[in-house]
């Protein structure tokens, strides 16, 4: 984050961006609960709201990424009535770990597609680990990991394209200047 000394950490422009992007992420998160998930396992969704988190990371930084991810998981789960259920904990662990991973990789100047795919990879692994330890009590859920990570790579790829295109479009129609 490049905030100069004396400048407020949250200017109104940043705050507006943060709110709008959070709202979009929540909406995508809720819509995803209506679409059948790719894997028959609670807490696993397509994960398209990750494209918004990618945008936040591109525009702002790690701290904002964590804010958006946490708010998205809490509010989307509250609105769909799954708050504090298994899918809430799996979602929270997954998205926080993926934000951390993606922002670290972004700082090391990896390409967006790899960043996004690896974010979903880490998120899936953490979710499987949480499911195995907290809920199932058996490591056999990892049998699903190849399948889940394959689907995660597919959406991760799409998410990177969406985020890249979204930022480009925002620049084109001049709302970012």
């Amino acid at each position, binding site marked *: 984050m490049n905030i100069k000394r004396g400048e407020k950490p949250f200017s109104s422009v940043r705050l507006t961006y943060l709110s709008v992007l959070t709202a979009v992420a929540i909406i995508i998160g809720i819509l995803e609960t209506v679409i059948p998930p790719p894997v028959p396992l609670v807490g696993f969704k397509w994960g398209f709201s990750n494209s918004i988190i990618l945008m936040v990371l591109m525009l702002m930084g790690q701290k904002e990424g964590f804010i958006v991810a946490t708010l998205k998981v809490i509010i989307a789960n509250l609105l769909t009535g799954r708050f504090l259920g298994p899918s809430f904990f799996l979602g929270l662990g997954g998205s926080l770990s993926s934000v951390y991973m993606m922002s670290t990789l972004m700082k090391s100047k990896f390409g967006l597609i790899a960043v996004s795919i690896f974010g979903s*990879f880490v998120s899936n692994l953490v979710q499987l680990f949480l499911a195995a330890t907290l*809920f199932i009590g058996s490591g*056999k859920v990892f049998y699903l990991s190849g399948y889940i990570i394959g689907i995660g790579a597919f959406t991760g790829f799409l998410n990177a394209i969406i985020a890249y295109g979204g930022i480009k479009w925002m620049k084109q129609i001049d709302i970012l200047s």
Partner: protein
Amino acid sequence: MRQFQSRVKENNYTLFQKRDLYLYTILIFFVITAVYFGFAFSKGSVVEVRINGTVQYRFSLEEEGQKSIQSNGKRLMDLLIDQGDIRIINSQCPLHLCERGSLKQSGVLVCVPQKVIISIVRDEEPVKDTDGIDLITG
């Protein structure tokens, strides 16, 4: 405000970089190992139902029909065994996600809210950790 704008204008994120190959290699390696082990371990003819980590039911894949899965006197779900494949039906969980797949598709059936995992094991695999719980073999 100006800071934010300059950050937005300066960021030149690219879709691809040469160094991404390292990440892709790790990923492909992981997926291949996972798929290999998933297939290697899920061969056999015995269905094992674990509830909360302990084996509670075991039965042969060849017995067709419905099985009721219960825990502490509460009915959790029914299993439908049909032509070497298993589906969960009539689950008591709120989302019914576990009813979507079959065992052949994914190698393992999981119901997170009820803490149930259903997998295929080999015949000779000894039954462990059944402390205090009746084991029903059929």
